[in-house]
């Protein structure tokens, strides 16, 4: 069998490749624009089954040729290219997985369902940590509850190394979360709320403490309303949580114009304001190899079933662990025919929760139902 990992030398891509290498005996192709980076990472495995390929994903013929003959295309590049890459998979007749499309891109991707059905292949959208593990946990709880009205999704990070101020993931993504209009399902209707609204305090228990959350745009909202309609779902909310001090600072930067995309002139050159701010904020970036952080993903159905996933650092930061690993697991499950069917599917529809949880557990990511570990 053969996996092609687009962006396989990026932060998440690396974690995916490493998991594929560890848990399969198959061929893995690390593909991307930067051949040197791809080669360097491939060489680190000292194995003939890991190969590097230079690829420009805006070049259709080149990408389709590369994908032909592979079992699964694992898309770990910026989500703006998701639809494009899925179209290449259709031509190459390859299965597909990705890390999510931040709602709007996901909606466009779902429209390719008929095309994937026609070729008998499967595409799973958003199978990282969140979206991803959260979707599968929701599916698991839904089977137990059968009827429920609400799903509340959130996550929390704790970084013991950097209590002062640290970015849990990319600064630009955090800014998007604070500024894009979040989708919320209210009384059966999908609405777009004000950025930063919907404040709520969560108590995550001893390890993660109390954290304040607010609505953010997320892919779960693109599929849950339809996936759980038959269960009676009327309300669904996604919140991102940060400690208050952190939020206050990010909000101040936004309010005072430091995250604007406007151009500013320095020494005769034009720069986007956010690019310079991003550069200044680089020193707070998540550190690879940080061994002190943990991430918790939570899905709460009607306050009756609370599902938690807890990931710890394995040398990589926990958010890299719980994003890369599930994506690799899904790709393997497709290749091994442990996921059957065809079309473009959300994880809650495609994946069998128990075998997925078992795979997560083998890799140190634990799933809890009402605080009891699911085994």
């Amino acid at each position, binding site marked *: 069998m053969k996996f092609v990992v687009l962006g396989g030398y990026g932060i998440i891509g690396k974690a995916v490749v490493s998991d594929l290498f560890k848990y399969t005996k198959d061929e893995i192709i690390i593909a991307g624009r930067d051949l040197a980076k791809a080669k360097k990472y491939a060489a680190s495995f000292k194995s003939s089954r890991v190969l590097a390929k230079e690829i420009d994903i805006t070049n259709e013929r080149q990408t389709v040729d590369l994908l032909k003959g592979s079992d699964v295309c694992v898309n770990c590049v910026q989500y703006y290219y998701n639809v494009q890459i899925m179209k290449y998979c259709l031509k190459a007749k390859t299965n597909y997985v990705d890390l999510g499309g931040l709602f709007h891109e996901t909606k466009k991707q779902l429209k390719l369902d008929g095309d994937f059905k026609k070729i008998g292949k499967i595409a799973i959208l958003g199978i990282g940590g969140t979206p991803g593990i959260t979707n599968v946990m929701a599916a698991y709880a839904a089977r137990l509850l059968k009827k429920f009205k609400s799903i509340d999704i959130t996550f929390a990070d704790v970084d013991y190394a950097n209590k002062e*101020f640290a970015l849990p993931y990319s600064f630009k993504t955090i800014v998007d979360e604070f500024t894009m209009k979040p989708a919320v399902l209210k009384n059966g209707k999908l609405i777009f709320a004000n950025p930063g609204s919907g404040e709520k305090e969560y108590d995550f228990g001893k390890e993660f403490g109390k954290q304040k959350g607010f609505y953010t745009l997320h892919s779960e909202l693109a599929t849950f309303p339809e996936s759980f309609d038959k269960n009676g779902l009327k309300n669904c909310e996604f919140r991102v949580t940060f400690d208050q001090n952190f939020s*206050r*600072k990010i909000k*101040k*930067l936004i*309010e*005072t*114009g*430091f995250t*604007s995309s*406007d151009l*500013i002139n*320095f*020494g005769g*050159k034009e*720069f986007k*304001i956010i*690019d*310079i*701010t991003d*550069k*200044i*904020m680089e*020193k*707070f970036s998540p550190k690879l190899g940080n061994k002190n952080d943990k991430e918790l993903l939570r899905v709460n159905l009607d306050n009756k079933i609370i599902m938690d996933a807890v990931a710890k650092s394995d040398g990589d930061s926990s958010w890299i662990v719980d994003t890369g690993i599930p994506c690799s697991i899904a790709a393997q499950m497709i290749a091994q025919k442990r996921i059957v069917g065809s079309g473009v599917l959300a994880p809650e529809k495609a994946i069998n929760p128990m075998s997925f949880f078992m795979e997560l557990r083998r890799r140190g990511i634990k799933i809890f139902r009402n605080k009891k570990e699911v085994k």
Partner: protein
Amino acid sequence: MTYDFIIFGGTGQQGKICARDLLESGYSIILAGRNKEAVKDLLKNKRAGFIYVDLKNIDDITNAIKKSGAEIVVNCAELTYNVDIMKACLETKRSCTDLGGLQKITLEQFKLDKDFKKAGIINVTGCGSTPGIANVMTAYAVEKLDSIDTIELGFVWDSNIKKFVIPYSMHSILDEFTEMPVTYHNGKYIKENRLMCTGTFDFKEIGRQTTYCIVHSEVYTFSKYFKKKGIKNIHYMAGFPEHSYAVIKTLLDLGFNSKEEIEIRGAKIKPVDFADKVLSRLKIPKGYKEVENIWVKLYGKKSGADKQMEMNCIVKTVNGWEEAGSNIDTGRSISIMSQMLKNGSIRGSGVYGPEAVVPWKEFFGELRKRKMFIYENGRRIN
């Protein structure tokens, strides 16, 4: 054409306020700076001119002064240029005013005292609100005491709309909060731990506000001029309303005050310059009004008994000057003092703080005309 005044930093916030005040007082001015576009409204006045000057080049400064024919040099530029502008004044034998040099640069400026005396010209340093009005108020009060033990002073301000507006030069603000504050304590200068040096007090027209020790030039000049009155302690404390301080604190915590260049696409950018540029884009909200209180508390003795005095200068947004907010107390003060220098009310040669050379009566009178009111122990005196 020969001008009455040349204004360096003439295209900046304070320079523009000063220029308008001088024009409205009937004088002719030439604005020296780099951004002509920023002063196009002022240049509609026939008595106003513009000259391109790069302050990094001292010959440029000297040539501009010569060309202008101006008798008085007004320096409203960033304080890092104070010494070079003073040197150009020595070269051209022109007296000058400036907005102060915090601690370090003020000390450098006073080193030129002998040269200024020799040249028969004067530099009055710190001619804005604080340093500036604060110094003249203090001199006024000190005169009424036999001896003086402690002076606490500073500024507090607030606005009706709680939105961030640049209060004054971002470079200065970030510097003031980056350098450890220096206070005069028992006759010695000491570096304070900022976190330990704060206090929350009630202020006239402002209410309760937290103030922080910061580096300021008054600590140095007061210890010099009031030594003979026995001064032992001087504390300078700045207060910002919460909505403004939260932004300043965020920028400090995240390193936007840094002068260490970052590299992006081949360009080198100082975070502090970037922060200044980004914040300058913020528009002043409609109906935005400020109130500032420049305050001095003095603890001393009069006729053998303990005596406490409090001086306040209250400045509010004035109709027709809305864009300037309470910054009129800086830009218009330096205009007043520069005029007093030109008309001979301020005399002498050497380098001085305003508390040593500015006659208070005339100065307070000019402030009153501009709706800036001085209070002595709560009673208005101008």
